[in-house]
């Protein structure tokens, strides 16, 4: 089931919290709306569900105009951040709620509830009250409850936001697996880029009510069109440069221009370098695309890597992710003299 948004707008008072936003989501896709808090992403999701009115524009679910339909008639499943299970009902009764509304026969209903309890891997927990379940278990029940009436579309509003990190990771995988197994079209709202990367077929970056950019996680990470996207997704080093001929000039340095950037020729550009694309070696070594020599200003442990900050001779600071192996092999320490090179970089039109 496809979801099509046509120039939808939401106004609270005098503020447009969602502005003229258009988007098409393909059947079976898991689309992640990524944005900071207050960006309008949750409002957009609530508009699609019918929980918030659409002030302008149209919403189509499976080519059906639902813009002015109440939530009851839209056929969407909704999962809230705080689970929102019905506290006075058991897990099984919660899952059965949507089926009761549809007046499904008792036998069929019982079977469907059991099926869902097994899908969320809580087959023995049907008789438990929400208060007797852990946060992760509650959210799984909430997912089953949303899926029970076989909705056309599944909407998830920061569904893992209230959970511990370990459980979050587990549940993400579980959600992805269930979503693919059912082939259901889904939109997930989050502010967590890691979550977006792990789950999304495509990501839409939303900021101040506008959809800045849409793309696969790899596209957005490697070739963002907007500086905001580059900063919001992952870490970034920015250098001012000029694109001319076949080269990019950073001060007096010359780097080969990336492919498909001819349209930027003759312009000032911003050079985006991801920390993991930066090579740091002791001074004297040869590096590809050298940016210059410098001093290691800071080393922070970051799990599998060390985050190394180098201050170049011209004063520019560059962040690099250096593997622990390289750190030891080349004996890179605080105050080491090093040479910095770049493996990969990306050009964006200069911010005005």
């Amino acid at each position: 089931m496809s979801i099509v948004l046509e120039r939808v707008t939401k106004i609270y008072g005098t503020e447009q919290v969602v502005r003229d936003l258009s988007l098409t989501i393909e059947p079976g896709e898991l689309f992640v709306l990524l944005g900071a808090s207050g960006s309008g992403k949750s409002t957009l999701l609530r508009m699609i569900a019918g929980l918030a009115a659409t002030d302008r524009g149209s919403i189509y679910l499976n080519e059906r105009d639902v813009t002015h339909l109440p939530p009851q008639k839209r056929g969407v499943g909704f999962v809230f951040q705080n689970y929102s299970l019905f506290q006075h009902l058991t897990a099984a009764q919660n899952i059965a709620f949507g089926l009761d509304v549809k007046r499904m026969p008792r036998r069929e209903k019982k079977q469907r509830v059991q099926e869902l309890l097994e899908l969320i891997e809580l087959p023995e927990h049907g008789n438990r009250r929400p208060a007797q379940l852990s946060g992760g278990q509650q959210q799984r029940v909430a997912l089953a409850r949303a899926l029970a009436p076989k909705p056309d579309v599944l909407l998830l509003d920061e569904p893992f936001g209230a959970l511990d990190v370990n459980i979050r990771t587990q549940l993400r995988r579980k959600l992805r697996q269930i979503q693919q197994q059912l082939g259901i079209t889904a939109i997930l709202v989050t502010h967590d880029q890691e979550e977006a990367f792990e789950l999304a077929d495509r990501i839409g970056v939303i900021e101040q009510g506008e959809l800045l950019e849409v793309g696969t996680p790899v596209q957005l990470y490697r070739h963002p069109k907007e500086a905001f996207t580059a900063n919001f997704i992952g870490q970034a080093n920015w250098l001012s440069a000029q694109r001319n001929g076949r080269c990019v000039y950073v001060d007096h340095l010359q780097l080969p221009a990336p492919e498909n950037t001819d349209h930027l020729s003759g312009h000032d550009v911003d050079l985006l370098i991801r920390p993991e694309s930066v090579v740091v070696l002791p001074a004297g070594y040869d590096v590809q695309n050298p940016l210059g020599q410098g001093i290691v200003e800071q080393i922070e442990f970051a799990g599998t890597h060390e985050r190394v900050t180098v201050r170049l001779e011209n004063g520019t600071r560059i962040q690099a992710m250096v593997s622990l192996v390289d750190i030891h092999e080349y004996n890179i320490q605080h105050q080491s003299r090093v040479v910095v090179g770049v493996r990969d970089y990306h050009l964006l039109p200069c911010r005005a």
Partner: protein
Amino acid sequence: MAEKRATHWTALVLIVLVVAYAGILLIAPITAIVQQAFVDGIQPMLDSITAPDAREALRLTAIIALATAAINTVMGILVAWVLVRYRFPGRCFIDGLVDLPFVMSPVIVGYVVIVLFGREGWFAGLSIAFTPRAMLLVTVFVSLPFVVREVMPVLRAMPPEQEEAAYTLGASRLLTFRRIILPTIRPAVIYGLVLTLARALGEFGAAAVAGGGVQGYTENATIYIFRSIHDRNDTGAYSMAILLGVISVAVLLSMNILKQVQSRRSQ
């Protein structure tokens, strides 16, 4: 050590104080009534309680109490709902006004009814003053805040996502109210209902003024007790007092049991 002993002594003094206070205030009068009532054995009591005027007074009290409970449960939930869920001019004023019955003397409430519905009143045509309907009216008024004030905080604390979840699952507003909201506020409603019933059973001042206390017509159980005391009908006063007391305690107990059963079920 010294401090511990001091705490111990304070505790002991406080306990003795509370027990004595409760004993004087609660237990002594009850004991006195019960003892006095049984002075001549149980038969005179049964006789006086089953006399026509006593039966009529009990019937009136029961009808008014039940009707009040029914009206104020429905209206109490409605008022609480509107005050919590809607924003409208005068909301704060009405919210404050709900507590008026708590602070206003019941006698004044009864008097207002006479002024409004009496022979010279604005609504004289309705001929309500000095009838059982007037007694119902004042009883409903004086016990209005109980359900409202019990239900409001629960409604306010209820996250809106619960209802929204029900809507997305296809439930209409009415069904959502019945299946989601009502079960959530039920304990509060029950507690408010107990307080309403207790107040309605014991209401004297407002009912006496508004109804006029006509024997066999607008005389409820408390007015009966008052008249019996005046008439030096001690047995009648004691018997009715005990019966009314027992009914009140029974209501309290049964509601408590109901509440416990409910909370056990929802665990």
